[in-house]
C-alpha cells in the first residue's frame, strides 16, 4: 500500500510540474493595420504534434461577446492566397474544447483556440518547419472587421506530453515488473492456495478407491503458451499423487513437444513419490496433431476405459465441448482449467470443478514456484490492485465532486486516465 501511495504522489507531482515546461511557445509577432484588435491575439505552433498544425488564440472580451469569427490562413508572405479555415460564433471553439489534458494545456473557457490543421487545409503533406500567416474576420452587429495578419511557424515536437499519464503507468508497471522478477527467483513471494487444487486430491482419492484410471488431457496448446506451461506443472502434481496412491494415469497428447516435456515431468513425479518402478512409458501417448481426430480419439478412449476422473487442463478450443460431454456421460469426476474465455461455460456446466482463467496460471505458479510464472502473476496482481484502489478512490472523489459541483475535480481525475 505504501508504495502505491508513493507512486501516486510521484505521478501527481510530475504531472503538475509538467505544466511549466509543456506550455506552448509564443513565436508570433503582430503588426497593427486593422480595424479591430483582439486581446492577446497570437499565432502559435500546435503543441505535441508531428508538425502539421498551428494554433490561433485570443481572449474573449466584452466587445466581442456576440460576434462571429472567420479564420483565414495563408502560406504566402505577400498577403494573398487566403484560405478560409472555419467560422464560428462567440462561445464556441474555446481552449476548453481542445482535446489535451490539463497538465499540458490551459483549458480556459475565456480563451478562443482554433487549431489549424494544415495537412487538411492544404490537403497535402506538410514538410515542417512551415511558416504561415493568419487573420481573423470578425462579424459584429452586422459589420465586418479584420485583425492584423500574424505569422508563425509550425514545427515537429519531440514529446507527446498529453501521453504523459500513459508513460507514467508504463514506468510504474516496469518498476514493479523488475522488482517481481528479481524477487521471484528468491522464492519469497506469497501466492494463496487455489481451492481447485484440493479438488484434485479428492478426485485422485476416489479413482484409487474405484480402481479405475485417471485421464489427464493437456489440451491443444503449444509448449510456449502459458496455459500449457501451467498445465504441465499441474500434471506434475497430479502424477505425484497418482504415484503415491498407486493409481493409474493416462495422458493423451496433441503436440509432440508437449509430450516430450510431459514425459520428463511424470517420470520426475514418480521418482519424487519414490515409486520410479511404477512409471511406464505408455502413460503419455501421442494421439494426433489434428484437432478433430484428437478429440474423437480421446473421446473413444474415455468411453471405452470409463475413467474415474478426467482432468482437462491447458489450452482448449472447440474440443472442450466434445471431451467434457463424454466424460460427464461416463460419470467421471471432472476437473477443468483453461484461459480460453469462451470455452469456460462448457467446462463449467459439465465439470465438477473449473479453474477459471488466471486461476490456472496461479495454480501452476503455486505448485512450481517457477520464476517466470510467479513474477507475471505478481505484476498482474499489482495491476489489479491499482485498478481496485483507483476505481474506489476515484469513484468516491468523483461522487463528492459531482455532489458539490466541482467541475474542475472531475476534469482533473478523468484527464489523468484519459487516452490521448
Amino acid at each position, binding site marked *: 500500500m505504501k508504495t502505491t501511495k508513493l507512486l501516486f504522489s510521484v505521478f501527481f507531482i510530475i504531472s503538475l510540474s509538467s505544466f511549466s515546461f509543456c506550455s506552448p511557445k509564443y513565436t508570433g509577432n503582430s503588426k497593427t493595420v486593422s480595424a479591430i484588435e483582439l486581446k492577446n491575439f497570437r499565432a502559435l505552433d500546435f503543441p505535441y504534434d508531428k508538425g502539421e498544425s498551428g494554433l490561433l488564440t485570443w481572449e474573449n472580451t466584452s466587445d466581442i461577446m456576440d460576434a462571429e469569427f472567420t479564420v483565414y490562413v495563408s502560406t504566402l508572405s505577400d498577403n494573398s492566397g487566403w484560405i478560409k479555415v472555419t467560422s464560428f460564433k462567440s462561445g464556441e471553439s474555446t481552449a476548453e474544447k481542445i482535446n489535451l489534458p490539463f497538465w499540458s494545456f490551459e483549458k480556459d473557457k475565456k480563451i478562443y483556440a482554433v487549431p489549424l490543421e494544415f495537412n487538411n487545409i492544404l490537403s497535402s503533406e506538410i514538410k515542417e518547419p512551415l511558416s504561415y500567416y493568419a487573420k481573423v474576420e470578425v462579424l459584429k452587429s452586422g459589420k465586418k472587421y479584420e485583425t492584423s495578419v500574424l505569422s508563425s511557424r509550425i514545427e515537429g515536437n519531440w514529446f507527446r506530453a498529453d501521453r504523459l499519464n500513459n508513460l507514467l503507468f508504463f514506468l510504474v508497471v516496469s518498476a514493479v515488473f523488475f522488482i517481481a522478477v528479481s524477487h521471484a527467483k528468491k522464492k519469497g513471494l506469497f501466492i494463496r492456495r487455489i481451492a481447485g487444487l484440493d479438488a484434485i486430491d479428492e478426485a485422485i482419492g476416489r479413482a484409487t478407491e474405484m480402481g479405475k484410471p485417471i485421464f489427464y488431457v493437456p489440451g491443444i496448446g503449444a509448449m510456449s503458451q502459458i496455459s500449457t506451461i501451467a498445465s504441465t506443472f499441474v500434471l506434475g502434481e497430479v502424477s505425484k499423487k497418482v504415484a503415491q496412491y498407486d493409481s493409474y494415469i493416462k495422458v493423451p497428447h496433441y503436440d509432440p513437444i508437449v509430450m516430450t516435456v510431459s514425459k520428463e515431468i511424470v517420470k520426475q513425479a514418480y521418482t519424487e513419490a519414490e515409486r520410479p518402478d511404477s512409471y511406464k512409458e505408455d502413460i503419455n501417448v501421442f494421439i494426433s496433431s489434428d484437432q478433430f481426430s484428437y478429440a474423437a480419439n480421446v473421446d473413444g478412449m474415455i468411453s471405452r476405459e470409463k475413467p474415474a476422473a478426467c482432468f482437462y487442463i491447458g489450452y482448449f478450443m472447440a474440443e472442450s465441448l466434445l471431451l467434457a*460431454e463424454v466424460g460427464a456421460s461416463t460419470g467421471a469426476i471432472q476437473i477443468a482449467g483453461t484461459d480460453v*474465455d469462451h470455452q469456460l461455460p462448457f467446462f463449467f*456446466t459439465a465439470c465438477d470443478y473449473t479453474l477459471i482463467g*488466471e486461476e490456472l496460471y496461479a495454480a501452476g505458479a503455486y505448485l512450481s514456484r517457477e520464476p517466470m510464472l510467479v513474477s507475471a502473476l505478481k505484476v498482474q496482481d499489482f495491476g*489489479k490492485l491499482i*485498478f481496485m484502489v483507483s476505481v474506489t478512490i476515484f469513484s468516491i472523489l468523483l461522487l463528492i465532486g459531482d455532489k458539490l459541483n466541482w467541475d474542475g475535480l472531475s476534469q482533473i481525475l478523468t484527464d489523468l486516465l484519459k487516452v490521448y
Partner: protein
Amino acid sequence: MKLFKKQIPLAIVFVFGLVTLASYYVPHRTSEEYLDVMNSWENIVSAFGFFLGLISLFYAHYNKIKRKVDGWGYSLFVYIGFLLMVIPAVYSNGKQINPDASITWLGWAYRYIYNPLQATMFSILAFYIISTAYRSFRIKSLQAFVLFVAAFILILGRIPVGQMIWDQLFGFTKVTTGQAIDWVIGVPSTAGKRGIMIGVAIGAIVTSLKIIFGIERQYMGKD
C-alpha cells in the same frame, strides 16, 4: 560465435522494442518515418513467416507418407488440396473475377472447394452443442443456475418466437427481450469480462517486457 548467436539477436529485440515503444510518445516526423520503414519491413518479414507453417505442414505429411504410418494415404490429400488452389491461381494469375465479372478458375476453386470445406468444418460444432446441452449441462449449484439464467435469456430472446413467449410471460414488466439482453451483456457481463480483461492485458504487457529485456527467449529456440 556467441556474439552472433545470442548477443546480437538479443540486442536487436531490445533496440527495436524500445525504439518502437518510444515512438508512441514521440510525435516528431523522425519517429513517424522510423515507423514507416518498420511497418513496411514488418509486412515483408511476416509474409515470409507464412512459409514456416507451410514447410512444417508439408514436412510432417511427407514424413507420414515416407514412413507409411497408419492412414498415410490421407496425407496425399493435403498435397492435392494445396494444388487444387495453387494451380488455378497460377492459371488465373491470382485473380478471382474476370473483367467481364464472371469468376475465374481460382474463383471457382474458392467457391466450390475452399468455401464449403471451411464452412462445414466449423458448423459441425452445432451438433455437439445440442448434445452438450442435453447430456452435460448440469445445474448443480447456485452459480451454475445463474449461468443458466443468463444463457436462457440470451437463447430465448434472440429468436422471434422467444420474443413472443417472453412478452406472454413477462409482458407485465414492460421489459422487452432486447432490453433484457442489452442489460445482461451491458452491465453484469461487462463487469465479469472487464475483470478478466485487465489481468490478461497486464499479462500481455509483462510478456512484452520480458521479450524486450531478453528474459523470455523461448521463441529463439535452443542453442
